């Protein structure tokens, strides 16, 4: 299947024909295609994540994001908080939609400059009026999902504060009284 027809096919599957069986097929194909388009995902990460991550860091985040997509479970029961007896369940996998959007970034996306890539992403996200980064699974565009995935992480919080906070990681209790240590040079470049 050529790249062009593949892209059209994914778009058609994921949006025009919302039948469950077709959606599942689209999801399976989307999984393979995101893996095939991994270098595009890395190029996207390189363009829209902090430059301090560098190429290796962007590749690592792209790999983690890929794993997040692969391990997503549709209809999983979500945490039920206090004050309600209502249950919530994970939405349909966004994978096919994101695969199509990744493909739609264009064949030459990886060879563009960072600014040229960001310009394409800005055009793609132009309709996003909210200033909030959404929950990853709810992101309407793969670029937005990648931003939400990274900037919601403990690593990003450390980079923001330029300190080794290690949010939600197992850490010695006694050290919580101390000011978090600054990031080491290598960590600050992630």
């Amino acid at each position, binding site marked *: 299947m050529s790249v062009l027809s593949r892209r059209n096919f994914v778009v058609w599957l994921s949006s025009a024909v919302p039948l469950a069986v077709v959606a599942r097929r689209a999801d399976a194909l989307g999984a393979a295609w995101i893996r095939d388009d991994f270098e595009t995902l890395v190029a996207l990460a390189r363009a829209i994540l902090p430059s301090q991550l560098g190429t290796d860091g962007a590749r690592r985040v792209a790999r983690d994001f890929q794993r997040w997509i692969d391990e997503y479970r549709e209809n999983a029961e979500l945490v039920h908080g206090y004050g309600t007896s209502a249950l919530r369940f994970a939405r349909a996998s966004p994978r096919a939609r994101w695969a199509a959007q990744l493909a739609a970034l264009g064949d030459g996306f990886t060879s563009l400059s960072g600014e040229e890539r960001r310009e394409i992403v800005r055009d793609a996200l132009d309709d996003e009026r909210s200033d909030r980064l959404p929950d990853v699974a709810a992101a309407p565009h793969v670029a937005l999902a990648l931003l939400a995935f990274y900037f919601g992480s403990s690593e990003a919080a450390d980079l923001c504060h330029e300190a080794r*906070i290690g949010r939600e990681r197992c850490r010695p209790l006694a050290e919580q009284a101390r000011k978090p240590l600054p990031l080491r040079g290598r960590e600050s470049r992630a």
Partner: protein
Amino acid sequence: MTYLRQRVAVECDVCIVGSGISAAMVADKLAREREARVVVIEAGDEVPSLGRRGALRQRFLDYDENPWPRDHLEGYDVEGPLQSRSMCVGGLAMHWGGVTPRFSPEDFKLRSLYGVGTDWPISYDDLEPHYLEAERVLGVAGEQGPPQMDPRSAPFPMPMLPLTYNLELLKAWVAKAGIAMWSQPSAKNSVVYGGRAQCCRNDTCTPICPIGAKYSPDFTWDALRRAKRVELMTRTLVRRLEKDGSGRVTRVVAVRRDAPNDEVEVRARTFVVAGGYVWSAHLLLLSGLANSSGLVGKYLCGHRNVQAYVRLPMKLYPGINGQHSLVSKQFMRVKRRDDGRYLRHDLRVWESSVGQAPRLRNSAGKLLLGDEILDDWRSRTQQGVARLRAYYDVIPDRSSELTLDSSRKSPWGDPLPKLAFRDAPESAAVKDWSEETIRGLFAELARAGGGEVIRAQSDAFQDHPAGGCRMGDDAGSSVTDSWGRTHDHENLFVVGAPTCVSGSCANATLTFCALSLRSAAEIGRAFPARASAVTPGSTG
């Protein structure tokens, strides 16, 4: 294939209905001190073992998935404000935050001191030894507050959880406004305790501690079952209690969820209803028991809160241990006001990152990417944000109630509960003023630190709900006596949350535990003492 309907009959000394934290306290104390065969009946499932909780927590962090699979029953939706739908071994306390303040002495005599609500039939001093015992069983790490605000007769069993770097700065800030705060007592291990690990700040105490540093009732059940001190029947739903002609309760009738046609009967000398504020009253109403006063299900109580986020000119590092907080009882231990109005509240302070999340567009609406997001985020986190929250007293009305809703049935055909919380007139009259007064305090605190309130809100939900089988000395105006023994049936007890007369203005779980241990002392009197009693906390 022919299906043979079975009938399962069990005989024991004490039958406990429910396996939440109050049930665990009763079973633990009986096991430590008495020779009695105890059978516990739980409608829900076993919870995942400690070894699986790290992976379940990760799924929660990554995908917001429920880390407690199968922790509720299908078909058991409750109409009205429900604290949580958890029905599993350990109950709602599998989800709790492990926060364990005590009520204050004033809580037990609101009518005498302030002219509102109803006095409890016990005083703080009556409950104090049981508070100590509960703290030892759960394993509470705490700091002694100023004695006039925080009376206690013995130290906490564990040293306090150290204040975080952020909380030390915030403590200094509130001190400028003349408010004394200290480390929130918590059932989280500041050292290895009860065979469980020291807290390592995973910071997901709610909804799941992956290492068992936070107490949850499953640890008590595991220990008691290993020692063969209790029998715990899971997936077994009690449908009714039955009495004989003398008024003594003789048996519970239950159904096994795996074999719905089988009937389970448990006969015991003493029955303990430990189903929390919803399912205790629900079971008594279904059974037509303990209700000569007409008050089963009435006087549901809790406390509402006002909270605010304050931006302060200090650099904080959110995420050091975000679930730990400062606490003060300064506004709980107040005198009657000259103007006759009534307000008591607690005060807690946390680090926060509200209003400081990374964002896609800046204030001018420009789309941000990459370094632009990071730079914008950094610039907005040079100042810190504190979260303030005050629970305030809400006096329950008689019509604050749980009723049976015959239009909605469980899978077994029983009417489901319906909840409605309503303020007594003396509370309703001061609600707006109370919330405005608390907001004023928050604004004053912000000013003292050179900061500003960036968001404030009042919550209509009543947290830590309780009541429904309130205790009292008069059988005409209460369901149980001060020990939780129902006035109508001398061998039927209700323990924990349902027996509360009022909900205080502080997290209530430790009080539920202390009340349950006090009930267990009375329940245990009917059974021989163990040759060598076991130290509290050694099974938990």
